[in-house]
């Protein structure tokens, strides 16, 4: 008696859920196409406006058209040097974000977990976070000279302080319910950390990575102002000295594209790794 009654309501639940899931999936597919089309259209509109600007004769001779810009970028890629610049910039950003966010994860976890260090260092961290990394450049030159070390340290700085705050807040917001559940099932402190806290904070870590990546690309040009021979920032800087406006445009667009690509990759990884979450889309 009890079995069949419970069984019937379970069957109803199953049918409901299956139907809902199908609808959600169909909706998602349509939504994804819609998103992609509109996103491309947005770029199309900007490029159109750019052509109009050129046609209007604004700052005549100082605004290259989109196809001229694409031309010069392709030419520079073919010569080989621009590819090396892109690679140098990408490497710097990855190194800066890797070290910066790596440290931010450790520090953020400690501050999120323990009350006293959090109270001790929170104001200090907010102070340093408020400083624009560019303002530190002269000081960095004094201490580290103008080598790779100087450039990387600025990026590490930017990545660390943007990431640590995200991770700190994320750990703070962890639902204690899951910790209690883990402890009641017999988890030791270490198991609680590895089996519950870590998976639970993965979304936060991925958000910190995205934020740090964004800030690091934004800081890159400043870092490469420090007498870099290579890198997209250096390309723009050098083009400025020779008034090569088309190269400047090309460099700026490449920075944007590189940042966009990295963010897209990270978002794809997030959506896959966090497929278990209630709201999947990052």
């Amino acid at each position, binding site marked *: 008696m009890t079995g069949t*009654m*419970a069984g019937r309501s379970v069957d109803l639940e199953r049918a409901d859920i299956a139907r809902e899931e199908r609808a959600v999936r169909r909706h998602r597919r349509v939504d994804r196409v819609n998103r992609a089309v509109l996103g491309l259209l947005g770029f199309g509109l900007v490029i159109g406006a750019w052509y109009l600007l050129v046609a209007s004769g604004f700052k005549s001779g100082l605004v290259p058209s989109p196809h001229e810009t694409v031309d010069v970028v392709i030419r520079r890629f073919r010569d080989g040097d621009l590819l090396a610049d892109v690679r140098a910039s990408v490497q710097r950003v990855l190194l800066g974000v890797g070290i910066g966010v790596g440290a931010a994860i450790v520090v953020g976890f400690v501050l999120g977990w323990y009350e006293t260090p959090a109270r001790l260092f929170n104001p200090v961290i907010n102070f340093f976070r408020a400083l624009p990394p560019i303002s530190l450049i002269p000081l960095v030159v004094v201490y580290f000279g103008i080598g790779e070390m100087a450039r990387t340290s600025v990026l590490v700085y930017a990545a660390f302080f943007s990431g640590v705050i995200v991770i700190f807040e994320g750990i703070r917001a962890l639902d204690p319910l899951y910790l209690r559940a883990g*402890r009641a*099932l*017999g988890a030791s402190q270490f198991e609680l950390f590895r089996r519950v806290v870590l998976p639970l904070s993965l979304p936060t870590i991925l958000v910190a990575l995205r934020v740090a990546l964004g800030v690091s690309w934004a800081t890159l040009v400043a870092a490469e102002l420090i007498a870099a021979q290579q890198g997209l920032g250096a390309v723009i800087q050098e083009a400025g000295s020779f008034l090569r406006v088309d190269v400047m445009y090309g460099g700026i667009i490449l920075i944007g594209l590189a940042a966009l690509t990295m963010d897209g990759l990270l978002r794809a990884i997030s959506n896959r790794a966090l497929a278990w979450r209630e709201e999947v889309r990052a």
Partner: protein
Amino acid sequence: MIATASPPRVELRGATKRFGTGSERITVLDAIDLQIADGEVVCVVGPSGSGKTTILNLIAGFLQPDDGAVLVDGTPVAGPGPDRGVVFQQYAVFPWLTVAKNIEFGLTLRRGRAPAERRRDVVDHYLKLMDLEDFRDAYPKTLSGGMRQRVAIARAYAVQPEILLMDEPFGALDAQTRDGMAEQLLSVMAAEGKTVLFITHSVEEAIFLADRVVVLTPRPTTIRDVVPIPLGAPRDARTKTTPEFVALRRQIEELLRY
């Protein structure tokens, strides 16, 4: 009978709990005495804010009493442990694990480690018992509230605790699901035969599930009365309309009234 040598499975002896400090210090539990025998199902009802959950948290080891003692098998509770399974009101199933991985979680920990074969047997057993066989590899986000709570109950039973502590596990479910869940839990409890403490604000649910119902007073909370439920087994939806059930219900509602 009274002179049995073995201590009760769970015993609260003058257990007192206060929250807050200074003038805002309030006494939530005031010298609670309660004994739960091995294999007994005890439901606790009380006005909201009366510290029902605090009693459970003391036995679970999430809280320590300010006065008195909380004993399990005669030993004071020092903290949470796998000898006492807990089912929470909010869905505490781990969202990053599939249904099967949730159920076997406790058996993959150092303290309760079981070999893979035994884990599979346990998971199979509880998937079947909880009507979750089709959802072995599903993530909790695809499950309804009732199903999530069935996973949580299976996960708690899987580590084979002697005591199960359930904190309004059906409180967030709609009425129909709730009745179905109570019936299913009744048959699970009968099959597994563990000691159960079940917190609820539904008098009907309490009578339906319990061997004894503990009725609490408002804060500072003491025990108003303990009502034995001599309904026997089996119980089903029709039990709730019997004269005995209705009388018990009226009696307990009366106890809660003032």
